C-alpha cells in the first residue's frame, strides 16, 4: 500500500521536500512509517523534538494502523498565535 506524507516547517526543511509517497507493507503503523522515513531522510531526527501525528487531518496515536491512500503528517511542536 501507499501513503502520502506531507512535511511542514522544520521537518520540511530537514527532509528537503514538502511531500513524498511512500510504500508500506499492509498493517504498518504510524511509528513504522516514521522509522522508514528516518532511513530515507536521516536529518528528520531532530534531537529532543516531540512529534504529534495526523492521518487524514485528524490527530492519531503512533500505534495506529495506516491504510492505502492515507495522508500522513508528522507534526512538530505547533507555535501559532
Amino acid at each position, binding site marked *: 500500500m501507499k501513503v502520502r506524507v506531507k512535511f511542514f516547517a522544520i521537518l520540511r526543511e530537514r527532509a528537503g521536500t514538502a511531500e513524498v509517497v511512500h510504500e508500506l507493507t499492509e498493517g504498518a503503523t504510524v511509528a513504522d512509517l516514521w522509522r522508514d522515513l528516518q532511513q530515507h531522510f536521516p536529518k528528520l531526527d531532530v534531537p529532543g523534538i516531540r512529534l504529534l501525528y495526523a492521518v487524514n487531518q485528524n490527530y492519531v496515536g503512533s500505534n495506529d494502523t495506516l491504510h492505502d491512500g492515507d495522508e500522513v503528517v508528522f507534526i512538530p511542536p505547533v507555535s501559532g*498565535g
Partner: protein
Amino acid sequence: MFRVQDEPIDLNELVRYVTDAEAGAIATFIGTTRNNNEGRSVIALDYESYPEMAERELARIGAEAAQKWQIRRMAIVHRLGPVQIGEASVIIAVSSAHRDAAFAASRFAIEEIKKTVPIWKKEVFEGGEVWIGTQSGQPLQR
C-alpha cells in the same frame, strides 16, 4: 469563519461577522508581532501551516467554545507567511449576549490555537532564524 490566509487580516470583517442583534458583547483578541523575544531582536515572523487541518482545528475550537459557553458567533483567522512587527498574525472575535461568555471563549481560543492547531512560526531575528518550540526540546502539551 475559521480560516488561514496569506493576506493581512481585516479586523472589521471579523467584527461585522460576529455582530448580532442578540449580542451585548464582542471580545476580540489580536496576536501581533513583537519586536523582541527572549532577548532577541525580532525582524519578522514567518508562519507556515498544514492549511486543511489548521482550518478544521480552528472550527473544532469554535464548536467546543459553543458547547462550553453561551456564545452567539465566533470567527478566527490566522495569517500565513511573513508578518511584520506590529501586524496581526491571528485575530479572534466572539459575540455573546452577556460578556462573561465572550471573554471566556476568546481566551480559550487563543490558548487552544497555541496548543493544537498545526501552524508553525519561524522567528527571523538579527543574526539568525529559529522554528519556535522546536529548539527547546520541550514536549508539546496536548
